[in-house]
């Protein structure tokens, strides 16, 4: 009998010690403080309990067994308190969740601080594998200085078009992306401008505003992360396409970069560009936005840089329509068109929208004169009242390959919004290329 008890006690001792050692290994190896706490609390207490019971059995006296049982009981009582307090403290202190965590159920319930130690400082630096390093370190380590794009050395572009020195092509993905990329490349080929492909624009997952089912925090974070993943995928596909298309013309000055910014920070990136090419439907939440919500529209409203919105590649633009409304930005449309030097040979038609409003007629005549002075063929069309003649505008627009406009009006969701027509939306549906100077 006592032999059996001793064998049992020895087994308990070895088993408990092994479990405690495994728990210690878990404390060292698990990815975030919460799972480490889990290893220390559960496996540690289990192992120590086994070991204490084994020790009590091996000593054999009733007092020793009682002491061992009491120690196990107190461990089981107090370890949850300690680990709960530690986990809560780790969360409040802002310890990062491990990569495998699915949801943060405490988000919004507890305040989180900033993680108290800079992870970049404490992370171990791993040496790069040797084959990833380029073979000729001495030469490639020197950054290549960017040559200024020199139009004179790259074929013979038109004299006026030298104004465009830097073109930026937004790579957002979506149906019109390939057309926009090709249009941007064609333009860079024509003018010798430096072309930058920027992907990652508008990586801002749409916030879920609807009613949420049970487990709402989980589902909303799942929706946000899956939509972010989708946007990233389309961005990566567009960047890939851009690089494969750009490989076809090695003599151009082409850069591709990826910046994950929201739409407002994007504006700062775009400020130095002479022309921004955006595919149709490129919205702040990835592709397929409504025309009024697009990055193109908000950039035009902020007047950061001239925007070219490409829905289809028109090939050769043969007819350009200038939409002049009553907003003051419409007075600068012709100047913007001339500054970009686009569509040199195409005749320009000026369409006054609602010429009974103040200033429209003056702006139309001034811009017609300006364009004529630069040697363009100009016709002034009869005015349209947009609020009632949307179908006429659509029919008229279908005859033109390019349009120049500012954002004439904006939907603002008021009571009359449903009977209001937005010229930008109509034009965006119909005309392949729109310049928003």
């Amino acid at each position, binding site marked *: 009998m006592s032999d059996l008890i001793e064998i049992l006690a020895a087994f308990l001792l070895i088993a408990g010690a092994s479990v405690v050692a495994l728990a*210690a290994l878990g*404390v060292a190896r698990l990815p975030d403080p919460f799972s480490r706490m889990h290893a220390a609390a559960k496996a540690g207490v289990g192992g120590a309990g086994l070991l204490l019971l084994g020790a009590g059995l091996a000593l054999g006296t009733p007092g020793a067994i009682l*002491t061992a049982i009491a120690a196990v009981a107190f461990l089981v009582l107090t370890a949850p308190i*300690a680990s709960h307090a530690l986990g809560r*403290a780790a969360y409040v202190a802002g310890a990062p969740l491990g990569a495998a965590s699915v949801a943060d159920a405490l988000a919004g319930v507890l305040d989180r601080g900033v993680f108290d130690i800079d992870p970049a400082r404490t992370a171990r630096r791993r040496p790069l594998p040797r084959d990833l390093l380029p073979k000729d370190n001495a030469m490639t380590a020197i950054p290549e200085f960017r040559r200024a794009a020199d139009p004179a050395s790259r074929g013979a572009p038109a004299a006026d078009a030298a104004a465009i020195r830097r073109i930026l092509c937004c790579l957002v993905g979506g149906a019109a992306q390939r057309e926009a990329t090709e249009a941007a490349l064609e333009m860079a080929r024509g003018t010798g401008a430096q072309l930058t492909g920027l992907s990652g624009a508008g990586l801002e997952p749409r916030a879920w505003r609807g009613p949420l089912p049970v487990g709402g925090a989980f589902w909303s974070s799942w929706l946000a992360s899956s939509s972010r993943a989708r946007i990233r995928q389309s961005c990566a596909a567009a960047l890939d396409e851009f690089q494969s298309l750009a490989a076809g013309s090695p003599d151009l000055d082409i850069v591709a970069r990826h910046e994950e910014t929201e739409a407002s920070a994007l504006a700062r990136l775009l400020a130095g560009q002479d022309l921004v090419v955006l595919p149709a439907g490129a919205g702040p939440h990835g592709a397929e936005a409504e025309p009024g919500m697009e990055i193109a529209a908000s950039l035009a409203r902020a007047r950061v840089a001239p925007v070219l919105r490409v829905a289809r590649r028109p090939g050769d633009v043969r007819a350009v329509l200038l939409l002049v409304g009553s907003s003051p930005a419409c007075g600068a449309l012709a100047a913007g068109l001339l500054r970009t030097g686009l569509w040199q040979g195409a005749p320009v038609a000026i369409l006054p929208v609602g010429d009974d409003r103040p200033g429209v007629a003056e702006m139309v005549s001034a811009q017609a004169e300006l364009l004529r002075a630069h040697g363009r063929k100009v016709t002034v069309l009869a005015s349209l009242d947009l609020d009632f003649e949307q179908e006429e505008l659509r029919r008229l627009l279908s005859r033109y390959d390019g349009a120049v406009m500012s954002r004439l009006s904006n939907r603002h969701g008021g009571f009359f919004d449903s009977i209001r027509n937005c010229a930008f939306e109509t034009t965006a549906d119909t005309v392949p290329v729109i310049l928003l100077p």
Partner: protein
Amino acid sequence: MSELVILAAKAAALIVALGLVPVAWRLITGPSSADRAIATDMLGLIGVCLAALTALVAGHAAFLDIALGIALVGFLAAVAFARLLERASVKPATEPAE
């Protein structure tokens, strides 16, 4: 007590002492204070185990009382550390309104 139990106790002490190495590593490398507090908690558990094994190897049941004592008070250290961490955590910097 037979030789078997003494031998098992020595082997168990060796295994538990091996477990000290990863805990010490975690205690040194952090990276956050919460990790260090968790490692300290784990050290307390290992101390309970070593006290119980000492009772076996030394043949004195009194060492079991030390294990009982550590099990009773060990959690106080963790709770105190947790309160300290919660109070000392850095508040996120509020972004200036643009």
